[in-house]
């Protein structure tokens, strides 16, 4: 089967490409990129006025299956991913049971092949049951398709345990993903410690609880040589620590989320639990520092931390509601609305932050727009108008911090191995 993407602006900074041209795909592989391409037989997709990017990947997704299928399933979560323009997601291991053995990784891989519409890369737990006590079967999980390792949401309190994990991961060339939170310092906090915690009478989660763990894990990365990826950084000082570490040549990468980029604690006037995040929304100054770090290359990727929850869980007292917002379906539109349309970032930066950066950080196979590579492609209509409503989501959950937003730009098509997962804005069944 042949497919011709006609007349789009094709952008891939990895291969130095930014031009209005055609992409010819045959049997799931890009065979030629150039102008005025012709094919004897096949389907032509008009990409005029559209942006053609290497397939986007989300480095931080909670698919909730197995165990919490009422929030999300591999089927619904991958549809949400396709709707948001992603060709792949990295699935966090805090399922029930925790993804901490090869057989549990295999379940996700098989389930994704069976029911998913985008690629799913499982992330394994670092320690058994994410309890921070003994190593999980990391080699076994790698053998079954796990890509990186994290005790996300249950940060390893013990520096000694973390060191052992990083030494062990180093031997496999695998990345440790750290959710940087010193639990005794954040202890029960639900909003940023400061103005909002004082005004709303809610327990505070201070910036320092993140920063001391960022500093600790950077030092352990230097000690062990293990690749470290810092998840969802939220403070100015955290990205400064990463900037310093990178300058010293330490193998550290980091991500920021759309909600930490585009929302801050000033939005928390009431007790809207859709704005309850871990780490919490920080100050306007932190937000500005995160955007600066995106632009200067300190931040490697924008990741969603897509965290679906059911209404009965979120519609509780603020302190009782779970942390998190969904994010797969809004990330690209938010990035375009707030960063590309305002000329803070280019589309090449978007490719860097949402396609190449996350793959390099987690050690995934690269996806580029050049002849001979697999056709994992995201096509964006930068002028599409989006209104974020409950009905608009493909996700099983609608706990979005961006409900009601009117956004600019949306993925129109997603190709995975040359097949459409999203076509004209609709998920292909």
């Amino acid at each position: 089967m042949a497919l011709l993407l006609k007349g789009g602006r094709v952008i891939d900074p990895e291969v130095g490409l930014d031009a209005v041209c055609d992409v010819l795909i045959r049997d799931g592989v890009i065979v030629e990129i150039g102008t005025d391409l012709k094919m004897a037989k096949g389907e032509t997709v008009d990409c005029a006025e559209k942006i053609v990017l290497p397939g986007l990947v989300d480095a931080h997704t909670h698919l909730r299956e197995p165990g919490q299928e009422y929030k999300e399933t591999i089927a619904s979560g991958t549809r949400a991913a396709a709707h948001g323009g992603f060709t792949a997601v990295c699935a966090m291991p805090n399922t029930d049971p925790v993804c901490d053995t090869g057989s549990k990784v295999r379940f996700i891989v098989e389930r994704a092949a069976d029911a998913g519409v985008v690629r799913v890369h499982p992330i394994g737990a670092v320690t058994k049951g994410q309890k921070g006590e003994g190593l999980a079967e990391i080699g076994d999980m790698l053998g079954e398709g796990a890509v990186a390792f994290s005790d996300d949401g249950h940060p390893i309190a013990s520096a000694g345990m973390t060191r052992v994990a990083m030494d062990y991961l180093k031997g496999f060339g695998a990345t440790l993903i750290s959710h940087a939170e010193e639990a005794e310092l954040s202890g029960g906090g639900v909003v940023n410690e400061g103005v909002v915690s004082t005004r709303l009478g809610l327990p505070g989660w201070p910036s320092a609880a993140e920063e001391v763990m960022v500093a600790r894990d950077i030092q352990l990365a230097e000690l062990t040589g293990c690749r470290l990826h810092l998840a969802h950084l939220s403070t100015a000082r955290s990205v400064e620590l990463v900037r310093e570490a990178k300058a010293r040549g330490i193998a550290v990468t980091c991500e920021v989320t759309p909600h930490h980029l585009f929302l801050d604690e000033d939005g928390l006037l009431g007790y809207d639990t859709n704005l309850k995040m871990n780490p919490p929304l920080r100050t306007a100054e932190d937000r500005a520092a995160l955007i600066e770090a995106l632009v200067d290359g300190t931040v490697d990727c924008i990741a969603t931390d897509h965290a679906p929850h059911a209404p009965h869980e979120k519609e509780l007292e603020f302190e009782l509601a779970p942390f998190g917002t969904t994010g797969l379906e809004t990330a690209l539109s938010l990035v375009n609305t707030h960063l590309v349309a305002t000329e803070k970032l280019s589309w090449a930066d978007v490719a860097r932050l949402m396609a190449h950066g996350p793959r390099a950080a987690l050690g995934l196979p690269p996806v580029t727009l050049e002849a001979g590579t697999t056709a994992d492609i995201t096509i964006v209509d930068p002028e599409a108008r989006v209104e974020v409503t409950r009905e608009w989501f493909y996700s099983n959950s609608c706990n979005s911090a961006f409900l009601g937003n009117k956004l600019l730009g949306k993925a129109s098509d997603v190709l995975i191995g040359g097949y459409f997962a999203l076509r004209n804005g609709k998920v292909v069944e």
Partner: protein
Amino acid sequence: MLSCKHIMTMDDLTPEDIVTILDTADSFKEVNERRIKKLPTLRGRTVVNLFLEPSTRTRTSFEIAAKRLSADGLNFTASASATVKGESLRDTAATLSAMACDLVVVRHKYAGAPQMLAECMDAHIVNGGDGVNQHPTQALLDLFTMREKLGHLEGLTVGIVGDICHSRVAGSLVPALRKVGARPIIIAPKTLMPARPDILGAEVAYSLDEVLPELDVAYMLRVQFERAAQMPFPSNREYARFYGMNAARLGAAKPGMIVMHPGPMNRGVEISSDVADSPRSHVLDQVNAGVAVRMAVMYLLLGGADSGAAA
């Protein structure tokens, strides 16, 4: 009449509302001194005390206030309610709403519970204490007591001493004092201060003895040991030495300075027994004022003069 439908935080009330409440409470206080302490004012109106955190003083005070105004009052407490069966606060609110309650007093372990009720009920909501956030009727009865004992509120310097970060009383009293033109100073060890005391609008002091001579009111807070994750000071003895009100400190203060406490008191920690039982302590006057102030709040929210016979 008040400018607001609910009293969830002190932000709901204007300075004029506060004066209206205190003046109305004045007339109800007189009723409370009669032999027959009952008015027909809220006959036929239903007041629910939704107490989802243990409370005896506040619940009793609201209950007596409702009864003295002839409202049909009922208590819905955590142990007796469906909440122990796992019902959500929203469903509890919807259930009470379906029973057509006119006013709900809510006490809850978590901040923001009154706002949640207000979102899903038609009834007037009065915050009877939400987590460590606010307790506005306590602040109102404190203002009432200060005005009664000192004759005015404007220009008073009020030292609020102790466990500020765990205190919903301080959370409401500081903005209440600001609204009436008084000068709040919060005084505590740093471990008992909120993250940003400056945004509350109070001056901050770490030494009680330094500011003691300026105070017209020393408002002592109970140390809420049950809410602190780590012991916030080395010992009760050391706390009492630096932050406790005792006879020596009373002697060093202005002769007219009064001592207040929202109760229950930890005698020997934030207040010594001789001070607690001295004529300069107005702890029981605060309790007494509480009934009148809560009567005023219910009366004014449920329609004021339009609701029936005035006091």
